């Protein structure tokens, strides 16, 4: 099957469209709520909460004996909430720190969920088949009804974020100041955590409980690299989440035994690493470039300073000097610096290998020496001795 066939079939196939819609909703919701989770440094809480959803799913199934998504997701939401409450209770009533509390909640809830799943697998009925898709997600099994449920959840969550935008922003930046102005901080916190629960619920069928937390972290972390505005960050994060969702669905429909969750997370990771490396300003590559350019510039200015000083020693600042003399003064990488200076036409390179300051270079040299007198002014013992 060629690529264009694949694309056409993806766009027209009913199942793929449903699955794509599910992934899109999941990506957008977790992208948006993930921004707040990330900025409030609650990524690990998101992780614990999504793992904690598993026993809720299993219990809901045991109670209803059906794979209807609404009751299962309700069970998941309640359990995720219980997980968050358990973390709060452990940190406020024991001496355990929050990382310990998160670890305990995650492993206890998730372990219990796995036990329940095992019990369910042994049931004599056939209805339980495929419940383990909630571990790693299997978007291909999404039904239209499921997507409709997820859609309601997503609209609720996003609508609430839009409505309480100013309040959630303040809560995330400076909760104490929110309290000073009379906003009920505890209530806002509960609301925002509930919205994160909704995001988890919206993604759990597509991504699964194990990898759901990656969707709360990755798109937001990638988005943070590209912008310094909260609103832009939220939009970008939603976009990245949607991209990862769709990309993952396509990946897993091509490689047919690949569960959707891991495929989506692979896509999200690519976005994160790409952003960490290449985003302008914050990206590592960018910073490396800027730093090395600055370093080169400083080295070049050192050479310029030496030229200026040599010139003033001889009573003529523009007088040419042999490059060798400079090398003795500033070290072996003088050629690179001279190229840099020549490129800015601060220095003229003569055919006989000598170099001279240009009038512009002279002006720069004067400024630079005035600014950095104590550090780079010639006549420091080192350079002074060798030329004396």
């Amino acid at each position, binding site marked *: 099957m060629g690529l264009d066939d694949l694309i056409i079939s993806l766009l027209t196939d009913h199942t793929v469209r449903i699955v794509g819609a599910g992934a899109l909703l999941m990506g957008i919701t977790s992208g948006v709520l993930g921004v707040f989770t990330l*900025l409030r*440094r609650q990524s690990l809480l998101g992780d614990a909460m999504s793992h904690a959803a598993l026993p809720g799913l299993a219990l809901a199934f045991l109670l209803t004996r059906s794979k209807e998504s609404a009751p299962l997701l309700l069970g998941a939401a309640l359990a995720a909430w219980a997980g968050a409450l358990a973390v709060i209770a452990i940190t406020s009533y024991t001496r355990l720190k929050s990382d310990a509390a998160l670890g305990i909640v995650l492993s206890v809830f998730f372990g219990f969920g796995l036990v329940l799943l095992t019990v369910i697998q042994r049931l004599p009925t056939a209805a339980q088949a495929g419940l383990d898709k909630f571990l790693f997600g299997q978007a291909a099994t999404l039904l239209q009804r499921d997507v409709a449920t997820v859609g309601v959840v997503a609209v609720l969550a996003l609508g609430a974020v839009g*409505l*309480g*935008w*100013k*309040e959630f*922003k*303040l809560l*995330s*930046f*400076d909760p*104490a*100041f*929110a*309290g*000073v*102005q*009379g*906003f009920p901080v505890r209530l806002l916190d509960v609301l925002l955590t509930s919205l994160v629960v909704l995001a988890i619920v919206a993604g759990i069928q597509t991504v699964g409980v194990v990898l759901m937390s990656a969707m709360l972290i990755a798109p937001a972390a990638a988005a*943070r690299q590209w*912008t*310094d*505005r*909260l609103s*832009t*960050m939220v939009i970008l994060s939603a976009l990245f989440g949607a991209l990862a969702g769709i990309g993952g669905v396509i990946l897993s429909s091509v490689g047919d035994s690949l569960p959707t969750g891991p495929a989506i997370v692979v896509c999200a990771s690519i976005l994160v690493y790409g952003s960490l490396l290449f985003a302008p300003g914050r990206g590592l590559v960018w910073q490396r470039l800027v730093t090395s350019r600055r370093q080169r510039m400083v080295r070049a200015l050192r050479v310029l300073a030496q030229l200026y000083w040599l010139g003033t020693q001889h009573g003529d600042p523009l007088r040419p000097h042999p490059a060798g003399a400079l090398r003795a003064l500033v070290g072996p990488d003088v050629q690179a610096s001279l190229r840099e200076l020549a490129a800015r036409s601060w220095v003229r390179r003569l055919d006989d290998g000598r170099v001279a300051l240009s009038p512009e270079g002279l002006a720069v040299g004067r400024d630079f020496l005035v600014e950095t007198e104590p550090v780079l002014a010639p006549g420091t013992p080192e350079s002074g001795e060798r030329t004396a």
Partner: protein
Amino acid sequence: MTQPLSEPTLAIEVSDLTVAYRDRPVLWDVDVEVPAGVLMAVVGPNGAGKTTLLKAILGLVRPAAGTVRVFGQPLKAVRRLVAYVPQHRDVDWDFPTSVLDVVMMGRYGHLGWFRRPGSRERALALAALEQVGMRELAHRQISQLSGGQQQRVFLARALVQDARIYLMDEPFAGVDALTERAIVKVMRSLRAAGKTVVAVHHDLQTVREYFDWVLLLNVRRIACGPTNDVFTEENLRQTYGGRPVILEARRT
């Protein structure tokens, strides 16, 4: 001295305040009366409970016992009248937002639920930034600010709260001499406008110059009153647990 018929208004009246985070009380049976219109320093060693006192006045920590009244009323009724300048280290300055945005947050309480800041809030925020000498930096990302600039952003945010009482937690911590002068100027203009300012202050050398009222605190209230009466060697020795005070003056 005879009392006037109506008591002179107290901006803040703290009675029998006791606060404990765990078992050991951080504030013990503290009484403080802050007359309206004073510039008051809160002085005491690290861990004395100064921040906790401000937070208790603001309703951010729940006291084990005691009451706080603001202009004779419970805080809830007059919340808008109290502005807060927290220590600038209290928040994450890598948060994706601009100086102007942070200052406008001081208007959120007045706006109430769901209403977004608009041009009026913008104008107020810009005026406050002007007052603290930060107007040109309005659109800067907050991660690119020095400690002194962060402190001034928080001061501007409190100014737009347009309150009658300003509580400031170590406004001079980690700022250079220039910023310190700018902040003192703002404090004085607040007092000139009839506002009350309460600031946690660590530099004993400047207490007399900056403040006309002092609270000496170390878990208990050691003394509270006009600087000239209260800011004495003896009281300071008590506050700092008998240690030589002049050395304490250098701490930050």
